[in-house]
């Protein structure tokens, strides 16, 4: 049975306690697993084995690392603001855990004789809760940077606050399209909305044929998903957007001065945030816990099995995070900001307006005739060439224009002699 908003808030207190514990354990285990997973996948991409000593396939490596980290010396910098220095990682971690409370894992199941949905709780504004938590969580980073009393963390913290202000907006806007399609902000109802496939008929103007609309919002709202995916990477401070902790520029960024358990909390929060945004992507765009291609009443979408489907989808999303980290270099700070403000946000706004237009034209007949000319006009205005192209001066004239005594440059038609080694390789290849 697919849960709706009405099914929540009726649990007995010990069921709630079990669910809270389950979510906590799930997140901690996922963190340990994801660290191992990331190290193994990146290692595979770099043609090396990765951790493979502790436990089967090295699965216990992150547990060992975590224990070792907890027993390290806890250093408090002399110039640190002691209270804020302590509070910052706590804020990060609490927000990371809280955001997962509204994640739907599965349908209504029977738990010790009680019928209950496999989701801690749901509220009419569930998705906003995730946004609020991620917004508050960045306070942990900014405050840790400020409280460390040191330059590099402060720079990392400042970068992080700018990143938050710009990428929160893009992320929030990308989710708006999902709200428009599903008509709700509750996660369980968004999953339910993606379960219903519908016949869509193209207006008579364009032939009048009909087709079955795919259920998942990743298909229906592809632009939103792309923007969500990009800003999710920015939100979680992952490569290529890991500017707050850019280790080659800022030593460790905001957590440079942290050690022992406090550092472990940041580590935990970062991985949980990754799991959360992946889980949200699965819920909002990939049909949540449902197995694709089967109806909600099919046995494959009943009982405890959907938890497995959810986890598998989650791991695929996490794999993409790792893939990005293994592939892309870090963006330059100004390029990153320009991308957020001048590309993601305007594209998102245009897409929302287009979507609203489509939805309105579906509700009203003959509106298409009004929309098409306006759309053409807008497109024309968008792509109208604004100024003449600068005349291109050929390279020879540019070189000739340089003042006398300039540093010598090689001739433009210089032919670089082929090295003897290269010639040998070519010759060998020709033989084969």
């Amino acid at each position, binding site marked *: 049975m697919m849960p709706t908003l009405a099914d929540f808030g009726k649990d007995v207190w010990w069921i709630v306690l079990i669910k809270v514990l389950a979510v906590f354990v799930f997140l901690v285990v996922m963190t340990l697993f994801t660290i191992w997973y990331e190290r193994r996948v990146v290692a595979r991409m770099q043609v090396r084995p990765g951790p493979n000593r502790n436990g089967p396939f090295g699965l216990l490596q992150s547990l060992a690392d975590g224990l070792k980290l907890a027993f390290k010396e806890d250093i408090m910098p002399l110039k640190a603001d002691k209270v*804020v220095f302590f509070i910052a990682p706590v804020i990060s971690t609490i927000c990371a855990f809280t955001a997962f409370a509204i994640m739907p894992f599965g349908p209504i199941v029977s738990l010790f004789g009680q019928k209950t949905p496999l989701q801690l709780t749901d509220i009419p504004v569930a998705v906003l809760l995730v946004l609020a938590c991620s917004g508050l969580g960045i306070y942990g980073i900014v*405050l840790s940077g*400020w409280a460390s009393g040191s330059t590099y963390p402060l720079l990392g913290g400042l970068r992080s606050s700018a990143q*938050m*202000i710009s990428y929160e907006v893009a992320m929030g806007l990308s989710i708006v399209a999902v709200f428009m399609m599903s008509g709700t902000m509750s996660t369980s109802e968004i999953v339910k909305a993606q379960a219903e496939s519908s016949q869509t008929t193209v207006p008579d103007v364009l032939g009048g044929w009909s087709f079955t609309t795919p259920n998942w919002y990743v298909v229906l709202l592809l632009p939103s998903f792309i923007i969500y995916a990009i800003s999710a990477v920015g939100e979680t401070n992952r490569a290529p957007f890991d500017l707050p902790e850019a280790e080659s520029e800022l030593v460790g960024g905001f957590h440079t001065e942290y050690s022992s358990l406090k550092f472990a909390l940041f580590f935990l929060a970062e991985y949980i945030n990754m799991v959360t945004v992946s889980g949200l992507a699965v819920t909002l765009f990939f049909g949540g816990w449902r197995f694709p291609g089967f109806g909600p009443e099919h046995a494959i979408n009943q009982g405890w099995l959907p938890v497995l489907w959810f986890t598998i989808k989650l791991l695929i999303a996490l794999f993409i995070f790792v893939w990005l980290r293994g592939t892309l270099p870090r963006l330059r700070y100004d390029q990153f900001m320009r991308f957020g403000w001048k590309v993601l946000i305007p594209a998102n706004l245009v897409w929302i307006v287009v979507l609203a237009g489509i939805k309105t034209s579906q509700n009203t007949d003959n509106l298409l005739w009004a929309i098409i000319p306006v759309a053409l006009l807008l497109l024309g205005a968008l792509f109208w060439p604004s100024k003449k192209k600068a005349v291109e001066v050929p390279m020879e004239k540019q070189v000739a224009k340089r003042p006398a005594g300039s540093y010598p440059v090689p001739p433009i038609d210089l032919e670089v002699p082929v090295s003897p080694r290269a010639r040998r390789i070519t010759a060998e290849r020709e033989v084969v």
Partner: protein
Amino acid sequence: MSAVQTGEIITFFILAPLAVIGALGMVLARNAVHSALWLILTMLSLGVFYIVQAGPFIGMVQIIVYTGAIMMLFLFVLMLVGRDASDSVIETLRGQKVVGTLLGVGLAGLMATGIYQATRDYTVVGLEAANKDGNVQGLAKLIFTNYVFAFEVTSALLITAAVGAMILAHQEKSGVKAVGQVAKMRERFLPGNYPGPKPGPGVFATSNSVATPAKLPDGNPSQRSISPILPTRELTAAEKADKPTLTGGA
């Protein structure tokens, strides 16, 4: 009709003192950043109050908007007064503190009694009717029908304020043009400028001081290899002598 539930009472009596403590802390904290943090506590408590009182949307929006807003405040503090700024305890006006405290307490008392008198025999009605189609939907219906004009005017006002602040705060550097990468590259290769990297100091040869100049191929010290901020110093005889590679190992 809308009876107050036990959970709501418990939440209120936990969070209300926290909200008041946050408000007091914001006023009393010496450090501007600590003030901002206390303010977050108060705003979060208010957000939870809204949620508890059947306004989940406004509660969440309160949290989301005020996190961003206080973050901006935080940045302004950092940019305007620096990291270690604290309030000075010196009074600029004589007796300002006493008078300010008295006036503040008086105002709080007036407002509290006023609100108490006005709401004492109040029966709250209409919550179910307002949230009939769901809280968010009801709010959206009101904003985009009855109050659409006020809503749009407010947004226009906010945008005007933002643009105005940007124009006032933005200082055009007169006469200084932004130098692009291409222009910089051309400048680097102009006559009189050496385009390559500067030689490193002679730290690897006879001395490990960055103030020791590197030697040019003709044996002269290269002035370019030393940072101009370093004090000049007298070289020792060993440092002045040619390196063994130059003298043929002698």
